[in-house]
């Protein structure tokens, strides 16, 4: 799919998600459509409970929407005619995840956390080790490669998590509040990293964030409110 790169890395159409039923029914997504190009860095804003995580879970093939379509790299990944995909295999090859905290497996060292993603994808041990070290070097945490996650600072942990998300050269990276646990300076550094990853690796990156101070780094901005999505100009951000 890399040969004939489609115009849109991610396309969603009419995404709707309803949790529960009857009294406990919650409509988390209402008719959400979004298009993201390769190399595009997207910020997804919105108040708590507005449906941002639910949206990422639908795009990331973690939690299927109630209705609507998701296309990744031009392929319909939900139950369209071309679906025929195992979500797990698809995630492994095409999607990288970074979330708020505890991204790392505590019983593996930093470099092993990256290597496991490569091992799961069938990479040989030798090639995996080399690529993992390259990635840690790229993200500037190579000197902490053999440390346990608990011995890393929050910023270093997120760098390792980004390295793991990049391991299998995904076309899509989804990040859910990756800087929430960091102070603003380190938060900006990590956001800068996503920008670098999107522009240098050609991945479409969606980052859910509450951090308005780093919004200038993003190419596109969306706001979610009560399950509805709209594109905003960064200048319309609240103070």
């Amino acid at each position, binding site marked *: 799919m890399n040969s004939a790169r489609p115009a849109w890395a991610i396309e969603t159409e009419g995404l709707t998600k309803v949790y529960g039923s009857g009294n406990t029914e919650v409509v988390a997504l209402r008719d959400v459509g979004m298009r993201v190009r390769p190399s595009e860095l997207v910020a997804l804003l919105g108040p708590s409970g507005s449906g941002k*995580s639910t949206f*990422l*879970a639908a795009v990331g093939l*973690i*939690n299927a929407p109630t209705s609507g379509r998701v296309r990744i790299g031009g392929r319909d990944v939900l139950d369209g005619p071309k679906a025929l995909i195992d979500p*797990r*295999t698809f*995630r*492994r*090859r095409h999607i990288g*995840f970074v*979330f708020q905290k*505890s*991204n*790392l*497996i*505590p*019983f*593996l060292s930093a470099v*092993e956390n990256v*290597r*496991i*993603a490569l*091992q*799961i*994808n069938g990479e040989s*041990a030798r090639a995996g080790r080399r690529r993992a070290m390259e990635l840690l070097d790229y993200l500037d945490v190579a000197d902490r490669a053999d440390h*346990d996650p608990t011995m890393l600072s929050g910023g270093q942990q997120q760098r390792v998590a980004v390295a*793991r998300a990049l391991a299998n050269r995904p076309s899509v990276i989804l990040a*859910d509040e990756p800087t929430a646990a960091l102070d603003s300076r380190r938060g900006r550094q990590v956001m800068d990293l996503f920008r670098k990853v999107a522009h240098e690796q050609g991945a479409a990156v969606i980052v859910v964030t509450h951090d308005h101070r780093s919004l200038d780094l993003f190419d596109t901005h969306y706001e979610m409110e009560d399950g509805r999505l709209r594109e905003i100009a960064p200048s319309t951000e609240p103070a």
Partner: protein
Amino acid sequence: MNLAIKDIRHSLGRFALTSVGVGMLLMVVMGMGGIYRGIIEDATLLIDRVGTDFWIVQRGTRGPFAEVSRVPSNLVHRAMSVPGIASSREFVYHTIQREHNGRLLRIAVMGLSWPMDKGEWLTLTAGRSLERNHFEMIADESLGLPLGTVIQLGRESYAVVGTTRHLISANGDGVAFVTVRDALDIQADAPGESIRLERAAREARGREFELVLQQPGLLSNAERPSMELPAVARPQLSAVMVSIAHGADPDTVAEVLGGWQDVSFFSKQGQRELLLKGSVEKVRRQIGLFRALLTTIAAIIMALILYTMTLDKIHSLAILKLIGASNTLILAMILQQALLLGGIGFGIAIALGDRIFPLFPRRVIITANDLGGLALIVLGISIASSLLGIWKAVRIPPGEALA
């Protein structure tokens, strides 16, 4: 990169402690099996060692080990006269409970028919077999009577001249071997006062006896030891052991013995079965059931341990699923940890058992076969108990990692 080992190395202390716990549990399971074997072995060792073909016992009894049997001493000679019987020996066997050096001592006394049998067939751990027909004893080590000990039984003292190992009665009392005469003396031995009372009673009865009225000199006999009294039958034996002559047909001998109306007889195999079916059977069943129960408990405990080990890893397993790990990888990780826990536990059980079981008062016999069986059981437990953890792990939604 093996996830099972990485995880264990990360919490090594906890895993080690858990392994020791599982090991001790398995050691108890193993010990129960060993006690079971020990009881069977102990019960039949004496019969196997004595090496006789037929046991002639009191009619209708299952003696001499399973119950008391009394046969007249002339039975030895009657048996000897049967064609095809090479040797016929007296067998005296009874348990006494006496005090020695202020300590309660239960002894299973077995008589050797001197001079034919001096105990040469016994495997001695020290000393020698009997060389005199009186006051010498071969004692089992379990009695705690080392070589050279002199023990007072009744009015006589017996010197321990040899020791054996593992020769104990079905009740677990150590066996002491003395000559048949000594064995009978020990059994008949009574305190002085009761002997005086018995003699007085004998004299009183004698006075009314017509023969004594005619020949008063006879009354002096009443004062002599009861064994020396004329016209009083020789003391009775527990059983008579016979060996078939080389080349003779055991069935023919059995036919002759079967025709005797006053006694019963058993083959060596028959004696074994009497013991195993009789006194030992209940103990055997009890231990067998207890062992089954312990095995079940071990399985449940291991399942809970592996389940909690899985619960502790839920977040990690969810991350693995999120980044695309297959269920096979996760299943393999839990199964490998279960097998490792079982395997290390098994090793600890063997190592601990080796040191602890010899300190038990009765024998704990671990055979290679039993060990193999236990290994299979441990394998089964490990696999079965990992199922609960695997069941849980497979159900973890990958979205859990985002929470």
